């Protein structure tokens, strides 16, 4: 899950940086979008819209992963406490 989160964070940063770079370019800038191995000439507005959509989707996926991570962490701590308590009882009895 950690690797997945890192990958999404990386993709999100890349989309943000690409958006920043796009904003620096003029209206009539020549933009290409990668489709597999091909680069297709596209309009700046369309590419920007796609990137904004991508950013939103990635942000949502990141939030979902963070919630899952939080839940797993909580469960991990609960189990750790249970193990500690069980070991304590066993040692007390011994």
């Amino acid at each position: 899950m950690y690797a997945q989160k890192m990958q999404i964070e990386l993709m999100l940063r890349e989309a943000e940086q690409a958006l920043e770079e796009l904003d620096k370019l003029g209206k009539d800038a020549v933009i290409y979008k990668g489709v597999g191995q091909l680069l297709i000439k596209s309009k700046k507005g369309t590419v920007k819209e796609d990137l904004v959509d991508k950013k939103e989707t990635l942000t949502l996926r990141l939030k979902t992963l963070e919630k899952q991570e939080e839940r797993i962490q909580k469960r991990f701590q609960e189990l750790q406490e249970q193990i500690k308590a069980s070991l304590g009882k066993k040692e007390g009895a011994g």
Partner: protein
Amino acid sequence: MAGKKISEEEIRETVALLQQYQNRAEAYRQQLALIELSIGDCESAINALDQLEKVKADKTALVPIGAGAYVHATISQVDKILMNLGAGVSAEKDSSAAKETLTKRKDEFTKIHGRLIEDLRGMHNEMQKLQLKIAQYR
């Protein structure tokens, strides 16, 4: 007896911590190697752009197609460079703007490289301390 038990527990924790540091250091080393590759990539692109500035349009060149094989091609435009902006988007830039972007990119990578080296050094210091602690228990 109770004292020995604490020591054993402590040594176990120290060994686990050392292992964590070793794993993290290995990940850092891998990342450093990737960053070094990226820095080299930027440098070679900047050099290529420098050389291209001296070349006139319609000049014949050889384009690599992999495995050391090349095809003949003609460079129709030397002043327009297509640059990857990330996230599958590329934009056309003039040679000087492309070089500026590449230099900025290289500087960023160099900064990150320096930070990682510093962190790795810190990690090595911590690992040495832990190794000393473990050696004392032996």
